[in-house]
């Protein structure tokens, strides 16, 4: 557990980067620090491993004052991931990953084994072990950066905008993998980002900072969306709050309707409704087909791929989006193995939403 | 200083010779380096060949070059043309790479825009690439100028007359005033060359002096 006790950081010119920060990052959870530029989130993070020293206040790690340890020792016990990975260009991927174990004096064979293990853990192939950072893509470099942070199996990870420097598709992949990893490893993570959507997606707890280094609100993502503490937070969290908050609500038993289905190569006639759902051999949905436009048997070119697909156990947001995006206006729902189970209509999902309770307002002020 | 005051005319005539021997190669060298640098910048195969060859030439110590060239060129050892050729070789060797680097520093977007507007080949080179490469080339030219002024003085050891004579004579006859005058004269000359190049660069690149300082 990481605790900030009234931590302040001021610089010589008079700027206050962090103003009286008191915050607890619970063990085994991801606490995201988010806010606009100049709000002190990165400074706060860097005070935990003492790359920046606080002007006043203390930071404790499991109730031990971080200032009581030697800085380099403190850091060897924490994973540190930064925006462009900061890999050492003169060392191979494997050597990069083994940096902290090497500093701690592990045996070479153990370092190598651990390195290969971690490469697999972060989703990289073993052939990358002997390559140099300059030969990797941005996403690959970031993964190596995470592997390097995990090498000595530290209980705590500090991550400073680790996914900001890659393109959106890669970023989403990295975020999903990160969540999967955390599910396996359960580390105490302090994560800095300027992207509120990333914060909401990844955080168990989100701490919003305002410019000047003051904490505006600390709560879990659903609560943050439902009850922003003031105008600044409301503004920062942005629009579509209602819609985005749906991702936190599991879809309870949806009423599923049966649907006319077909396989590729078949030639269904147009019934009352022109839309037919095409499935593959495993009953997984491939797309909708407008039978009034069919010239012959169904081919891949006839498929309308606009609709998204939601799982039965997924969120209300996914179910609603499936309904809204489907060309037939009936959202495709699949079971956990990916096989088609039925469709829902938008108004049915909305009815469920209307009857769902929002997170209750807490009496106590935050932090 | 006393020595200088009684030898003004000698110093001036030696300085004039020095300017010729150091300056003419700068001009010729630059003119030769432009096409070489251009070729090196364009072609992936030409670049290593040109750069390595010029690098090797630059490696040859100056005195050795001054001694070998008369034999190669078939000139008398005292002929100042040996020095001019030697200095030109050094200037080209240094500037070829500078020109190549300067041209490669022109942003690709600018080149594409120019081509998109219909500028091609020599026209584009002269009106777009070269002007934008001027800052880099100019920096290299300044180094070449200082280098040339210093190296030319070595030619006194093989008997070619210029400011270096003040050095050799001042040393051989132990006349401190003369030696110091020689050193200072060389430095002043180097400074003059440098200033001329800086001013010239500024004239050629009027857009740089209007740069707004970052907020």
């Amino acid at each position, binding site marked *: 557990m990481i605790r900030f006790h009234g931590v302040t950081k001021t610089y010589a010119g008079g700027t206050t980067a962090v103003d009286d920060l008191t915050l607890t990052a619970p063990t085994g959870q991801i606490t995201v620090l988010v806010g606009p530029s100049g709000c002190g989130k990165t400074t706060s993070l860097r005070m935990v491993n003492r790359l920046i020293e606080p002007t006043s206040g203390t930071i404790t790690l499991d109730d031990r004052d971080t200032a009581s340890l030697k800085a380099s020792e403190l850091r060897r016990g924490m994973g540190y991931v*930064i925006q462009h990975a900061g890999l050492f260009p003169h060392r191979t991927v494997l050597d990069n990953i083994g940096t902290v174990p090497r*500093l701690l004096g592990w045996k070479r064979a153990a370092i190598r084994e651990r390195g290969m293990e971690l490469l697999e853990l972060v989703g990289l192939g073993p052939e990358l072990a002997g390559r140099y950072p300059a030969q990797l893509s941005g996403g690959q470099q970031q993964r190596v950066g995470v592997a390097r942070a995990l090498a000595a199996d530290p209980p705590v990870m500090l991550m400073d905008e680790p996914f900001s420097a890659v393109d959106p598709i890669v970023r989403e992949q990295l975020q999903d993998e990160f969540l999967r990893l955390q599910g396996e490893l359960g580390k105490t993570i302090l994560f800095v980002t300027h992207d509120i959507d990333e914060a909401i997606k990844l955080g168990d707890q989100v701490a919003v900072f305002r410019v000047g280094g003051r904490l505006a609100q600390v709560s879990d993502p659903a609560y943050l969306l439902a009850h922003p503490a003031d105008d600044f937070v409301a503004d920062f969290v942005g629009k579509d709050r209602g819609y985005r908050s749906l991702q936190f609500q599991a879809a309870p038993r949806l009423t599923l309707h049966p649907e006319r289905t077909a396989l590729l190569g078949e030639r269904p006639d147009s019934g009352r409704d022109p839309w037919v759902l095409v499935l593959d051999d495993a009953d997984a949905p491939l797309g909708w087909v407008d039978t009034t436009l069919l010239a012959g048997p169904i081919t891949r070119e006839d498929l309308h791929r606009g609709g998204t697909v939601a799982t039965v156990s997924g969120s209300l947001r996914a179910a609603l989006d499936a309904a809204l995006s489907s060309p037939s206006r009936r959202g495709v729902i699949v079971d956990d193995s990916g096989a088609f189970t039925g469709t829902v209509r938008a108004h049915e999902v909305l009815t469920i939403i209307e009857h769902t309770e929002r997170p209750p307002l807490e009496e106590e002020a935050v932090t | 200083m006393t020595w200088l005051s009684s030898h003004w005319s000698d110093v001036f005539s030696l300085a004039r010779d020095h300017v010729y021997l150091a300056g003419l190669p700068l001009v010729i060298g630059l003119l030769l380096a432009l096409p070489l640098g251009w070729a090196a910048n364009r072609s992936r195969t030409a670049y290593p060949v040109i750069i390595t060859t010029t690098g090797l030439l630059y490696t*040859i110590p100056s005195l050795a070059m001054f001694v070998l060239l008369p034999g190669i060129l078939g000139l008398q050892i005292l002929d100042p043309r040996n020095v001019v050729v030697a200095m030109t070789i050094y200037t080209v060797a240094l500037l070829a790479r500078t020109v190549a680097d300067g041209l490669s520093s022109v942003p690709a977007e600018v080149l594409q825009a120019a081509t998109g507007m219909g500028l091609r080949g020599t026209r584009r080179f002269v009106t777009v690439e070269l002007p934008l490469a001027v800052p880099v080339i100019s920096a290299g030219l300044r180094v070449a100028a200082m280098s040339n002024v210093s190296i030319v003085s070595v030619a006194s*050891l093989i008997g070619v007359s210029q400011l270096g004579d003040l050095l*050799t004579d001042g040393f051989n006859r132990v006349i401190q005033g003369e030696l110091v005058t020689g050193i200072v004269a060389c430095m002043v000359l180097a400074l003059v060359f440098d200033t001329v190049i800086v001013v010239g660069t500024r004239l050629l690149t009027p857009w740089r002096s209007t740069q707004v300082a970052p907020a």
Partner: protein
Amino acid sequence: MTSLVWAWLTRAASWQGEGGIPHRLLQHVEYTLVVVLIAALLAIPVGLFVGHTGRGRWLVSSANIARAVPTLGLLFAVTLWVGPHIRGNLAFVVPSVIVLVLLAMPPILSGTYAGIEAVDPEARDAAAGVGMTGGEVLRQVEIPNALPLMLSGLRSAVLQVLATATISASVGMGGLGRFLIDGQQQGDYGQAAGGALLVALLALVIDALLAGLQRLVVSPGLTDRASRRSRRGNDSPAGGKVHAANPVDAATTV
């Protein structure tokens, strides 16, 4: 010319004794190595300090201004002023060594400094962040990454010294330069040109050896990055020939 040179080279007397080719060659190489070693011992720590801490940058810029001083003049001046104070044979060597060391320091200093400066600041931050002490950051991250530029600086220093040592023969120092100077004075063009040829060859051989050393010592992960980072422009189409010493950076003056 070739016949004269050939005659001198093939004469047995040219190879014997103190004035013979092997001895002079050895002298030349010895002087160069000793001078560069001294200059490196002096300049590298300063360069590391300036690059690592960011202080004392004025030292580096003033080193570059010294480029304007004519080498020959410096040699003569130091010999005249320092020489008389030294007894015996060393009187010919010490002033030249002083000047040579002074000339060798700027390229080593700026190469070291530039090399450290060129280290990716993110790599440096990560190094501190994973728990390396200041010394470990310097040894394990900064120096290995600074090597390409450091070695470039060393390489130009070696060539600089080699060339100036040739000229030092005019103030009485030994080495291959003696053949050029003596040959000049004796009107023996074969000797002068022969010596010049040997000096040129020595320079080329040593440069090639150093280039090979660079390739051996520098991490393969750095070859393209180093060239891309230190050159002003975009990627030079240099491909593999990264370590050709750049005369502009080298700023040799002789």
